């Protein structure tokens, strides 16, 4: 809960820091602010409670989700190099908007009232619309921003309609009170409002985490946005979205499991099928990672399908594993593609990774481990993430879902190995890549995290 206060203030401070002549102070200042927010997060640890007249609730699970969000944001900001390379960039505004968007993301992890869910989703989304279009001269960035904006506000409209219908059914926005009402016998038209409300609310939220069939904006937006903000989108927004979906289903709608599980399971399977099959054909590394992000949304939905008291932990573990691997992968792409321009834009094809093992052995290792983790190979964090969500789905007896999910993760191995093959087997041109020590530390941390969680998965599970 405290990170919301911290980041609201520091976001404003960051805006004022933009008045200074030197832009070099912005990156260390923002990293410090996020670190303070991260530490303040743990004030509520083991002291669950309601805040702001029952608007927000701090629980250990929501604190862990917020911590993952803040950790990913810290790593992404560190990879940005303070936006000093780009003369048209507005670093103070970018860092301020990133911090404000974190406020929205944290509201999504610990809302107790649907108003806070709506406000959180909107703070996060509106910030992301701005950042997607931040490269104003780039027509692809413009297109991505417009698509994201129109699709995102459309999804918001649908989500709001669901909330209004739920209000008509329960006459409360408090999610715990709504659960108590759900356990009582129903009368007259209430079930209709209730079912319409739950369906539309879930559709709106699943839009935000880009689960199929609401995924069609994802590849375009991920490809068009500047890579640094794509990284932010695919880690922070996804974690926050799943925290919100899990929270609303667990706290409020778990008595209606028999109604919504069919919908969630359909979307999980559709996500897995569509994304994994389409990703095989992709030439662009960024677009491939976009489809990979859709498929990981599918896997995380499996944990929701097998809703039990452990599935929150599974989503936590999965989002952490996914965030670490994605940040490494995008970090490598950002460094490699920076100087290889095609039509004035960084070349983001998989071919740009050719011969990476000769040019920079360190980056090749980082890339290989992140891809293995995303594919779910044992001894990486991704394997245990998949293992836990599959266990959850199995605990409710959905074995056929598991068979499909395992088949699709086998398909995934094929396209996750393409970048590794490009890096190690193919001959590339260009000279050696020199890395700053700072980049090495950040990428080293994410890679070490992936391996550490792969070797000792209980580290996170025991924390909860």
């Amino acid at each position, binding site marked *: 809960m405290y990170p919301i206060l911290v980041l609201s203030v520091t976001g404003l401070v960051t805006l004022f820091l933009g008045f200074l002549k030197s832009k070099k102070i912005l990156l260390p200042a923002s990293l410090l602010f996020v670190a303070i927010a991260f530490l303040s997060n743990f004030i509520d640890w083991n002291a669950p409670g309601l805040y702001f007249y029952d608007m927000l609730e701090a629980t250990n699970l929501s604190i862990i989700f917020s911590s993952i969000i803040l950790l990913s944001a810290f790593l992404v900001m560190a990879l940005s190099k303070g936006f000093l390379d780009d003369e048209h960039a507005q670093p103070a505004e970018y860092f301020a908007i990133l911090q404000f968007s974190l406020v929205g993301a944290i509201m999504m992890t610990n809302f107790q009232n649907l108003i806070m869910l709506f406000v959180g989703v909107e703070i996060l989304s509106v910030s992301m619309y701005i950042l997607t279009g931040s490269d104003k001269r780039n027509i692809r960035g*413009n297109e991505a921003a417009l698509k994201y904006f129109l699709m995102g506000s459309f999804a*918001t409209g*649908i989500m709001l*309609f669901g909330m209004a219908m739920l209000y008509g059914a329960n006459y*409360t926005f408090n999610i715990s009170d709504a659960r108590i009402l759900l356990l009582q016998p129903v009368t007259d038209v209430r079930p209709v409002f209730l079912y319409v409300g739950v369906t539309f609310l879930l559709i709106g939220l699943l839009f935000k985490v880009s689960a199929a069939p609401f995924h069609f904006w994802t590849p375009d937006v991920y490809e068009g946005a500047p890579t640094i903000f794509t990284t932010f989108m695919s880690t922070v927004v996804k974690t926050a979205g799943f925290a919100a979906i899990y929270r609303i289903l667990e706290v409020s709608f778990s008595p209606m499991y028999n109604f919504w599980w069919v919908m969630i399971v359909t979307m999980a399977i559709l996500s897995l099928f569509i994304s994994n099959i389409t990703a095989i054909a992709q030439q662009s590394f960024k677009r491939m990672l976009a489809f990979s992000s859709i498929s990981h949304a599918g896997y995380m939905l499996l944990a929701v399908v097998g809703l039990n008291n452990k599935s929150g932990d599974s989503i936590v573990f999965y989002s952490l594993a996914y965030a670490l691997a994605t940040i490494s992968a995008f970090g490598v792409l950002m460094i490699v593609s920076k100087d290889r321009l095609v039509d004035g834009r960084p070349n983001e094809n998989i071919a740009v990774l050719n011969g990476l093992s000769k040019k920079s052995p360190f980056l090749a290792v980082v890339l290989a481990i992140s891809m293995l983790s995303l594919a779910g190979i044992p001894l990486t964090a991704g394997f245990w993430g998949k293992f836990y969500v599959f266990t959850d789905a199995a605990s409710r007896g959905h074995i056929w879902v598991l068979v499909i999910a395992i088949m699709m993760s086998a398909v995934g191995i094929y396209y996750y190995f393409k970048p590794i093959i490009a890096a190690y087997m193919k001959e590339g041109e260009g000279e050696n890549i020199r890395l700053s020590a700072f980049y090495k530390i950040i990428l080293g941390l994410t890679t070490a995290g992936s391996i550490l969680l792969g070797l000792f998965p209980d580290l996170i599970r025991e924390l909860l």
Partner: protein
Amino acid sequence: MQSQIPDIFQIPLINYVLLASILFIIGIVGVLIRRNAIIIFMSVELMLNAVNLLLVAFSSYRSDPAGQVFVFFIMAVAAAEVAVGLAIIVMIYRNIRSIDVSLLDKLKW
């Protein structure tokens, strides 16, 4: 005071729900079939206002203020969205001199 309250209840609640649903569906159809970015945007606003109507109707039938409070939040957030959305549309217009979304096809594979 006493004479005004029954006036609201002369129209059954379900009529408001139907009206809001129809407005909402018009908004959805508008988003899906129109090609002009501004008109798509207007349709989204129509969807949001349908929701506002629904919330206010529920709220006054139950004499519960929470719904009306939510409407204020929706209005404030919609205003923020308009600011960002129009900025994005202006940015696109500067680059391609059009706001027809079917001209935006650079991101296809």
